[in-house]
């Protein structure tokens, strides 16, 4: 095994090095041995995500990872979705929340299976769901009796975008109250999503929000995203979102 040492200028050299068998007593020299890893930072997460995906395939459930900033309207949209599709599709929810069961309680009162994963057990309160957290909540859901599983991620526009949880599609909710520039400020999230739901459209007359500019900004960071403008509060446009969700459930994965 070669040896490395570092010079003051930061360069590193490897030396083939014979051990001498002299007296080392009272003298402990240390060296550094460079070990090449070349592994994705998220390799372990991706391994567990693949296990989740295999479970979804085995049980025939299509999984959508739903993300947004806090307060964009994910839970309100899910309530509308369950009401609209409940008779035609078997929907399950895996709910990620830093603390509390408020959203989970609201959703389970609509008669769908809900598995709550509080993320506060992580280091200082995790700001996203990763594949392992999702896996920990799957056992509480009747996957083989579901058509669609919606993973409601923790409200956050940065962290959830990086973590594959084994989903088939990623969707996000962006409320028009957040402004037109969010796609440019959080490009990783907008870039990662198959669908961008543009929520709170009922507030458009009261805001200076420029919908065309928002759409152009989304297209600048993700030309392939499908945009669905709607109001989860009034229900306007929710049918298009439901149609997309139904199409996901009936498309073989």
């Amino acid at each position: 095994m070669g040896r490395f040492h570092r010079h003051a200028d930061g360069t590193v050299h490897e030396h083939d090095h014979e051990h001498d068998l002299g007296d080392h007593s009272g003298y402990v020299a240390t060296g550094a041995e460079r070990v090449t890893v070349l592994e994705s930072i998220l390799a372990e997460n991706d391994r567990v995500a693949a296990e989740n995906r295999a479970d979804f395939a085995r049980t025939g459930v299509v999984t959508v990872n739903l993300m947004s900033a806090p307060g964009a309207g994910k839970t309100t949209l899910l309530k509308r979705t369950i009401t609209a599709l409940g008779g035609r599709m078997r929907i399950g929810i895996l709910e990620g929340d830093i603390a509390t069961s408020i959203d989970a309680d609201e959703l389970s009162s609509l008669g769908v299976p809900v598995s709550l994963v509080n993320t506060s057990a992580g280091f200082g309160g995790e700001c996203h769901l990763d594949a392992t957290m999702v896996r920990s909540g799957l056992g509480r859901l009747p996957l083989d009796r579901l058509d669609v599983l919606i993973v409601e991620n923790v409200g956050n526009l940065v962290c959830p975008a990086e973590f594959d949880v084994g989903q088939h599609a990623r969707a996000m909710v962006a409320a028009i109250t957040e402004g037109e520039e969010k796609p440019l400020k959080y490009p990783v999230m907008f870039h990662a999503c198959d669908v961008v739901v543009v929520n709170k459209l009922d507030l458009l007359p009261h805001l200076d929000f420029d919908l065309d500019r928002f759409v152009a900004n989304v297209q600048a960071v993700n030309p392939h995203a499908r945009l669905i403008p709607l109001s989860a509060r009034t229900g306007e446009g929710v049918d298009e979102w439901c149609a997309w969700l139904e199409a996901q459930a009936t498309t073989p994965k």
Partner: protein
Amino acid sequence: MHELALCEAIADTVVRHAGGEPVSRVEVRIGHFRQVVPDSMQFSWKLLTEGGELDGCELAIDHVPAVLTCRTCGEETKLDVPILLCGACDSADVQLLRGDEFLVVAIERVVAG
């Protein structure tokens, strides 16, 4: 803000490859498109490793600029802002060449001489 979670993932990877030996340095390669703030990552790394088995382990971040290539005109564009447009002809038919790297490249284990 996700730097802490990423540092946890890096630390797990380091420990898995360390074979029980102390580790003095870990090299990571992170593309600009990953939205990692190097200072914030260094802070998170220190916070996470202090007092644990990786205490004192240096985190070396190789930050890779985001570069895309245009399928329309063939030009390469270095991205300062994350807008996926060719800098030469404004085409959106582009491919990211570099900038989405997210690797633990190597570790340096401390070995007794």
